[in-house]
């Protein structure tokens, strides 16, 4: 008995080592497509409604077996880097990791798409348009014409972040919505004074994203920038280091004061999302910053949850970070390109063709409509006069087999596409039933005095080398300058600026400056107008 068991176990072990590759059917090929995975409960990326639909309408007629390969949405930049370097990446990939794309182009590890697009991608070209396509073009053979190394997804809404304040607190304090830093500060201190959120009142929330530590404070500190002293060249050179631009220091000094006065969330550097979410819906916070539609999103609805806990509790958009040197309330917005879509060289030419065909199929309007919206009567209950789905069902309201994710699976379009800019804009607020006006107002604020984020059209070697080091040091910088005693602020600030420069920012700034001088830039300088 024992002997048999041992032999069986050994056999299983050996078998599992052996390759289990199934033999493909005659004439069929398997196309592996990357798919972001957000761990949505009940939604299986590898076996979802959208995959079945694409298989039936695209795969079967073309003798292509589609396979979705899940990549965790939040670890995607690292995971896809490892897959690319390990030569195990899917045949059709996407990433937000610009540095990886630069390296891949440098190593010629991805397909040049010009010929493939011309032959198999008429719908892709029509959907993306010539101007957007240039984002994916890099002139590597230096003949003056860029080669199409990757496809930029089309970003329909360029808004980046919204700022939110408690309308019910304003009402209790008898205040108007703040319009500049002074009135904002008054609101914060008054809220603290009156303990509007109870004993645990924290007037101002702040969260430090470790992958980009200054992300949530840069809009506040940018309000202090002195644009009379900032040249366009500096704006590009310090693209990743706004903390070094003239005036920024006063912004950090202001935050330091708020921290020391107990206005600012003291645990901002400790990654306790659950505690923060809970405090947001318990009504302890008086201000927070997130995506412009975040408070009303169906997956994490801070507004509805707040109403349950606090009678009359209401989040509303606020636009108060007024930069006096420009007299503008600056908002950075995304460029028109979304993530980068590419085909690794590990895919054969046959697979590269299949991948472009698949994307082309995805760009056909009726296919895109299904891939983004799902089935009428299940994922949405009807359409309005513009053909835009209404009564869109949240993920937890539909059965598992019908769960879907528009952006992650239909990745060529970053945002829901209904045929024209007007319709797309009109559609943005529709899913937020009961809060449409709030979402529209919030989106409008997020586009106020907008400037487009900076990118460079040439690989920046120093950013690949030192980007992660600089970011990590910026995190340390932020915690240090906010938490130090006010009389030590100057010393701490100067010390950390020097450290950030030393871990690689100096090289980055230099290389950005060179790229600016050579004209290899995208984005806008708000000081120009």
């Amino acid at each position, binding site marked *: 008995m024992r002997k048999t068991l*041992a032999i069986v176990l050994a056999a299983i*072990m050996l078998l599992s080592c052996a390759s289990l590759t199934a033999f493909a059917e005659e004439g069929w090929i398997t196309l592996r497509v990357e798919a972001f995975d957000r761990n949505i409960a009940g939604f299986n990326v590898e076996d979802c409604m959208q995959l079945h639909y694409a298989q039936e309408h695209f795969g079967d007629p073309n003798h292509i077996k589609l396979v979705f390969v899940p990549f965790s949405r939040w670890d995607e930049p*690292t995971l896809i*880097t490892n897959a690319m*370097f390990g030569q195990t990446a899917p045949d059709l990939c996407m990433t937000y990791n610009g540095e990886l794309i630069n390296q891949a182009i440098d*190593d010629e590890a991805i397909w040049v798409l010009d010929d493939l697009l011309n032959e198999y991608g008429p719908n892709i070209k029509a959907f993306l348009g010539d101007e957007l396509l240039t984002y994916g073009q890099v002139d590597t053979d230096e003949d003056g014409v860029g080669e199409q190394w990757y496809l930029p997804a089309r970003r329909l809404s360029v808004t980046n972040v919204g700022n939110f304040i408690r309308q019910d607190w304003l009402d209790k304090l008898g205040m108007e919505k703040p319009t500049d830093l002074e009135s904002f500060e008054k609101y914060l201190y008054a809220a603290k004074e009156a303990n509007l959120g109870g004993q645990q009142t924290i007037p101002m929330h702040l969260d*430090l994203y470790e992958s980009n530590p200054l992300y949530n404070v840069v809009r506040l500190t940018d309000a202090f920038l002195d644009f009379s002293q900032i040249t366009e060249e500096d704006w590009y050179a310090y693209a990743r280091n706004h903390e070094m631009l003239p005036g920024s220091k006063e912004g950090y000094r202001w935050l330091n004061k708020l921290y020391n006065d107990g206005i600012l969330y003291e645990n901002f550097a*400790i990654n306790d999302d659950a505690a923060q979410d809970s405090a947001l819906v318990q009504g302890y916070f008086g201000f927070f910053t997130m995506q412009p539609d975040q408070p009303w999103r169906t997956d994490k609805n801070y507004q509805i949850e707040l109403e349950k806990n606090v009678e009359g509790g209401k989040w509303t958009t606020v636009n108060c970070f007024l930069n006096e040197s420009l007299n503008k309330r600056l908002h950075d917005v995304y460029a028109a390109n979304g993530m980068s879509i590419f085909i690794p060289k590990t895919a054969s030419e046959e697979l590269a063709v299949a991948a472009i065909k698949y994307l082309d199929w995805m760009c056909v309007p009726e296919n895109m409509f299904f891939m983004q919206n799902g089935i009428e009567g299940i994922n949405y209950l009807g359409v309005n006069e513009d053909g835009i789905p209404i009564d869109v069902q949240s993920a937890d309201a539909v059965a598992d087999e019908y769960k879907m994710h528009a952006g992650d699976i239909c990745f060529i379009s970053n945002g829901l596409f209904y045929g024209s800019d007007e319709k797309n804009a009109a559609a943005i607020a529709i899913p937020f039933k009961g809060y449409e006006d709030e979402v529209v107002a919030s989106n409008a604020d997020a586009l106020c005095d907008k400037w487009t984020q900076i990118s460079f059209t040439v690989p920046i070697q120093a950013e*690949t080398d030192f980007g992660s080091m600089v970011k990590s040091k910026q995190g340390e910088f932020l915690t240090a300058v906010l*938490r130090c005693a006010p009389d030590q602020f100057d010393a701490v600030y100067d010390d950390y600026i020097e450290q950030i420069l030393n871990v690689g920012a100096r090289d980055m700034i230099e290389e950005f400056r060179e790229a600016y001088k050579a004209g290899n830039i995208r984005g806008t300088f708000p000081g120009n107008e």
Partner: protein
Amino acid sequence: MSVKKDKLSARGVTRTSFWQAVVRDWRLYVMLILPVVFYIIFCYKPMAGLVLAFKKYSMTKGIWGSKWVGVDNFEFIINKMPDLPIALGNTLLLNFMGLVVGFPVPVVLAIMLNEIRSSGVKRVSQTLLYLPHFLSWVIIGGMVLQIFAPTTGVVNATLLRMGWISQNIPFLDEGNHWRWLYTLVGVWQSMGWGTILYLSAITGINMELFEAAKIDGANKLQQIWHVTLPGIRSTIVVLLILNIGQMMNISFDRPYIMGNPTVQRYCDVLSTFVYRAGITNGKFERATAVGLFQSVVGLIMISSANFVTKRLGEEGIW
């Protein structure tokens, strides 16, 4: 050789050849295959990849096809990365603290467990002590937040409410507090698991020695001091050498999860540094260079520890 063999057999001693032993104990050798395969695949095969430390890794050419660059990678990490010495210092300090505080605990604990008379109580306490070892650091990290976070953590919240402290104890956001927390949580997590080897070593001690000691009038503490501890001394020494050899190695998940930007200067260790400097940005050659450096120092440490213990008359590990 054959002469010797003949002599042995002439004396009536049978000496089995290697193959005879294999045939006789084949089951044991079959069991050995798995660990041997494990070491070949995960420890020896990757060693060839160390050549990456001297190359510039290309996505398309792989490890072998990539271009040789000499010691460029080492020059880069030494000259261009001022965080490396900090990470190195933290690695050594945290490991040293872990060794000094954490090493004796399993010994003491094993002796205490050994003295428990009721086998039921003994088993329950052993299981309870082992449990943390099986928790992932992600879970422990969550627990640490719940317990030690400022204001909302159980400890600070309780002490604040009771009025025993007026300000938070900065477990997570002040360097030295964080170091001790890191060390003690590590001790808590691994102490139970660490007792296993000592317990088996204690079981191996001849019971007659204890009886003899008792007859000589030794009380419990004297028995422990004069019988148990000398009995497990060689085990302690071997584990100590192995631990010293690990001084340069530090896991990734524990400092990464327990750390935060406030204590970056204290929690950045070689593994987290390598992650930033080489893994996230696809500079695997630099990650490999740091790894190679780490291994060489580790080898020097374990050799010297072994040398010293041998000089002190102990057995050593080779």
